[in-house]
């Protein structure tokens, strides 16, 4: 480790403190995930007794059997997929052209439009007006309402706009000289160059859609349209009510804790699967070599 001599004692200390902090952060993020997974595979009795800490106690898959046997679970799972895929596509379809337009110097009233978008990040209409608005538009209890109602998020628009602004203007000019129209400049030049930023925005959309709970609960009454998170909420409240009144249908092999944990584990799996595919787009230096600064 001769190279270590290049670093002063202060540098080494800095690295060590960083590693400790990052380690603590990783553990604090990872632990709930490990705990919930262990809980899902533990017996109901042990879970109720609070004996699960790190690994499953009284290993069983009864909780999963219970969850997977419920047809409502599959309905809500399908709904979550619809909201996530449809919502993300819809969001990108609005956010990408919107952010591109806002990034253009030649956009008439550019400052005003940008301010208008930023404004929505600070202030919004509030719960009741938004609900009434959705009701008046006939968007309650509808897939389309959830998909279109939350399609555009000011933060994502500004995030992508800033990235588009950082792309050297000469790419646009070269494409225009090559015969591209505005749409082709966006589609064939800016979008491929902005993959990391678009992947980030897409991931934000996917995660927020997948975990979307509050508005779905407010806007959806129809059991056939609720997403997984609302189903989870229903399950938790139903099971805990049953237990409180001493009329639990649950035996010792699963409990309301293990069933909730099993639903959470099932809901995490798709995000875990998708993330590695999106992560490859978080490449650095995609603009490297295109222009000489």
């Amino acid at each position, binding site marked *: 480790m001769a190279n270590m001599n290049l670093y002063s004692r202060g540098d080494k200390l800095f690295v060590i403190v960083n590693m400790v902090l990052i380690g603590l952060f990783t553990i604090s993020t990872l632990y709930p995930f490990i705990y919930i997974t262990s809980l899902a595979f533990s017996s109901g009795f042990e879970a109720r007794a609070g004996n699960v800490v790190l690994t499953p106690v009284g290993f069983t898959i009864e909780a999963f059997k219970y969850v997977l046997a419920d047809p409502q679970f599959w309905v809500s799972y399908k709904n979550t997929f619809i909201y996530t895929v449809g919502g993300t596509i819809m969001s990108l379809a609005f956010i990408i052209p919107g952010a591109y337009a806002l990034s253009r110097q030649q956009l008439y009233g550019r400052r005003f439009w940008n301010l208008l978008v930023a404004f929505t990040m600070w202030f919004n209409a509030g719960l009741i007006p938004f609900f009434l608005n959705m009701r008046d538009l006939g968007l309650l209890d509808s897939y389309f309402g959830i998909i279109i109602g939350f399609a555009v998020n000011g933060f994502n628009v500004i995030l992508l706009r800033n990235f588009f602004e950082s792309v*050297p203007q*000469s*790419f646009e*000019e*070269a*494409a*225009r*000289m*090559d*015969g*591209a*129209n505005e749409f*082709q400049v966006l589609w*064939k*030049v800016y979008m*491929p*160059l902005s993959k990391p930023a678009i992947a980030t925005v897409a991931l934000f959309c996917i995660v927020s859609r997948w975990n979307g709970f509050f508005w779905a609960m407010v806007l959806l009454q129809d059991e056939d349209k609720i997403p997984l998170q609302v189903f989870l909420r229903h399950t938790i409240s139903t099971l805990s009510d049953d237990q409180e009144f001493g009329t639990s249908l649950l035996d010792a092999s699963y409990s309301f804790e293990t069933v909730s944990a099993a639903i959470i584990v099932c809901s995490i799996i798709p995000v875990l699967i998708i993330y590695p595919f999106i992560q490859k787009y978080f490449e650095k*230096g*995609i*603009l*490297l*070599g*295109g*222009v*000489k*600064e």
Partner: protein
Amino acid sequence: MSGVSLEGIVKAYGAVQVVHGVDLEVQEKEFVVLVGPSGCGKSTTLRMIAGLEEISGGDLTIDGRVMNRVAPKDRDVAMVFQNYALYPHLNVAENIAFGLRIRKTPKDQIDSQVKEVAGILGLTDYLERRPADLSGGQRQRVAMGRAIVRNPKVFLFDEPLSNLDAKLRTQMRAEIKRLHKRLGVTSIYVTHDQVEAMTLADRIVVMNDGRIEQIGTPMDLFLNPANTFVAAFLGAPPMNLVNATMIGDNLAEFNGQTIELPDLADLKGSVGRAVTLGIRPEFVEVADASVANQVKIDVDLIETLGSEALVHASLSDKPFVIRTETLGKLDLLDNVTGFTINPKLIRVFDAETGVALPGQVHEQ
């Protein structure tokens, strides 16, 4: 006729005018270089021709058609950018083919055109590489390939060599010249480097402060600069400018020394008139103390460049540079006290306006 015509072209940003009524006729197949210092409006003028900047006034005609309101893609011009502007997500072949694909050219035609252009530019072995994996010179070639593959009416070059090192710049300069000879496409080239301008141009347009100072062939501008700006801008080192006062019809005085000038009608009977004398560093003969009728200078430094040397001196408290051969003159160079010059090689400018006096034409 793929000529380009600029008539009274004006560019203004709000109240600020940066190009003031430029008139220029570029003939078909001609290679015209716009040259001038930073901020003189040369790039803005080029970008107006390209369609990347709106024209605030005047008329731009390409191939006989007024183009003021025509989109860049419909002007049939191609541009090579200073920073290459290669699409980093596409490989060399895709970069070159981009414009053809946009125009929906049939695939087999694209392939053959890309191959042909890659052959011309020596890029055949690099077609699969991304721009990041290329050297500066190769990137610049790809940028040129992207321009020539479309076979446009006009090529526009915006300081294409300024990001290359000196050796590569010289090499690419020659390649551009060869390419122009081979393709014969009307070309307009912007640079601040007067060596590029002198070597590449059929005609040079010297710009300053949003205006054209002079248009002419490289040698014409070198020998017959219209004013002190052009005189001081072209040439390396540039022309020496010396302030003097007329003391006879063809005799001027400065700092207690006299110098004989060419016979010019404008100078007859103009004793007392202030003039500026333009003396090219290459046109003087260095002299030691033994030479009569020499103009004395204070030698400060001699830079020997091999076959030639630059004598840095001062005259009337201003820098004065002489470029001279070294072979057979090394002893003389150690004892330089002044110089002599054929009066016909001195260019005389009006001291107030900086404009060359009429009647001075050096044949090439």
